[in-house]
């Protein structure tokens, strides 16, 4: 059987996805194309004089080095904005996928077919990847396209790696939204849980640079695993990405298990 549930879920968001793609492409291109103006400017000099605590919160002094394209892109796009945009898309998909369909009542039509609940969860998660990956690719492509005209000094491999990190943290957030929705049937909980996790993981990354005893906590932060090692500057953090990938798998299995057991009340 073809992935019909995936197809329906992705198609239903087609218009929204096109809008997000245009928005992300525009934002990323603009931010990237102003790099030469920022590279050696009053702003750069001002940042050099920022208090070290502030710099530490945003990823350490090294990442504030706007003298390289990688440093600039890391701070302005990949440390927060791109992951956050993808996370928003992923959570909205994840909320709709189970809790939303249950609340609307369309889940009845879907599950009355000869298809297991586990299969529905699996196909919906495939759909999540199918929604997030193209948007991450658009972000990466926008950076590289501007890079044809502006000397960023960042290779295609590094950009792809950074986009993969953002994709992983987004898919994890979306799957958590599905898990929370499967467990409770509530849209509000499905939005709240992954949003809180993402906010907490951002704070942990920032504060761990300031407060030394918080540093071990970084391993609990998906955002740290995605971009905490600054892959644009330092290359593929294989272990961190594997952890994220594993967490996505665990969240998928948990969602499948929880959804399979739950009473679907209308």
């Amino acid at each position, binding site marked *: *059987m*073809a992935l*019909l*549930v995936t197809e*329906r879920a992705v198609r*239903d968001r087609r218009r929204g996805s096109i809008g997000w793609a245009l928005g992300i492409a525009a934002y990323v291109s603009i931010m990237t194309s102003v790099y030469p103006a920022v590279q050696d400017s009053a702003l750069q000099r001002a940042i050099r004089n920022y208090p070290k605590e502030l710099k530490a919160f945003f990823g350490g002094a090294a990442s504030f080095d706007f003298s390289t394209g990688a440093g600039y892109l890391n701070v302005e796009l990949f440390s927060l904005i791109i992951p956050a945009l993808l996370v928003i898309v992923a959570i909205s998909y994840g909320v709709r996928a189970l809790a939303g369909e249950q609340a*609307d*009542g*369309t889940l*009845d*039509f*879907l*599950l*009355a*077919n*000869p*298809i*297991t609940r586990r299969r529905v969860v699996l196909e919906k998660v495939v759909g999540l990847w199918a929604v997030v990956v193209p948007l991450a690719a658009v972000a990466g492509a926008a950076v590289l396209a501007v890079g044809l005209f502006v000397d960023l000094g960042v290779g295609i491999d590094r950009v792809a790696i950074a986009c993969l990190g953002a994709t992983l943290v987004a898919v994890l957030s979306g799957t958590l939204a599905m898990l929370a929705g499967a467990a409770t049937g509530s849209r509000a909980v499905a939005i709240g849980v992954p949003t809180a996790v993402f906010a907490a993981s951002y704070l942990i990354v920032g504060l761990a640079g300031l407060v030394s005893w918080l540093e071990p906590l970084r391993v609990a932060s998906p955002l740290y695993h995605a971009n905490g090692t600054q892959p644009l500057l330092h290359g593929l953090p294989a272990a961190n990405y594997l952890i994220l990938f594993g967490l996505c798998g665990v969240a998928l299995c948990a969602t499948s298990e929880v959804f399979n*057991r739950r*009473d*679907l*009340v*209308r």
Partner: protein
Amino acid sequence: MDAIEVERLTKSYGRARGIVDLDLRVGSGTVFGFLGPNGAGKTTTIRVLLDFLRPTSGAARVLGLDSRADSVAIHRRVGYVPGDPALYERITARELFAWLSGLRGGIDERVLEGLVARFGVQADRPIHELSRGNRQKIALVQAFMHEPELLVLDEPTAGLDPLVQHEFEELVREVAAEGRTVFLSSHMLDEVQHLCDHVAIIREGCLVAVEEVATLRARAMREVTIHFAAPIDPAPFRVLPGVRDVEVRDANLHCHLTGSANHLVKLAARFDVLDFTSTPPDLEALFLHYYRDAEAGDGAAGH
């Protein structure tokens, strides 16, 4: 083999009332009505049959298969109309049918086209532009399109205009004539009495009675009002079989009628009748009747 066998089924959840120790058998090839007021547990029972809800205790078998273990096999052979159905809004009915057909591994397109034409489904407009009645038609078509052995219909005629409702009744009769089974819920006796062979009555989560429709109709009470051209003597009306609570004000007669209207109409016809109205049978009154019987212990809740 019975199409549906429910044994001592109990489903309790949260604050909502569930069902308690429900026993039910629906014979293959019958049209079976499941009657009760809103909130009586009809939808809960149906959702257990489809494995959307899991029994607290007891079990349900559908087409001889266990509702929990064999739900996929059951879904393959069952057509379902949810109560107050919600459809995917952005696509057209044709896209929806094609998609559902794909999930079922293909259907006979001629059957689908026949149903679409028969119900006058507006198949090429996005579903969110359609009225309640037109959506209900789509919900009906998707339940019948794969020619299932069993149809589980939760309040299927809600929102349908009378012509479409008639078409639906015809379709149900054809399906039954082919030996397939129809299980339909309703909160209106009039809705099921033309269609069903047997009716189960459920109230507050408990099965009150399973009756042939004729028996039920004989017990159902209607309010009748007759407007005469001139004042009449109520005395002969008071002694008619099945007629109770006769009140006369000027030329208007009001009474409660149980069973056939034959005697009442014949007596009334001796006078000049301007108008004759009869309300649908009052389900609550009917339930009270069964409750009284059940309490008196004369076995009205027999099977």
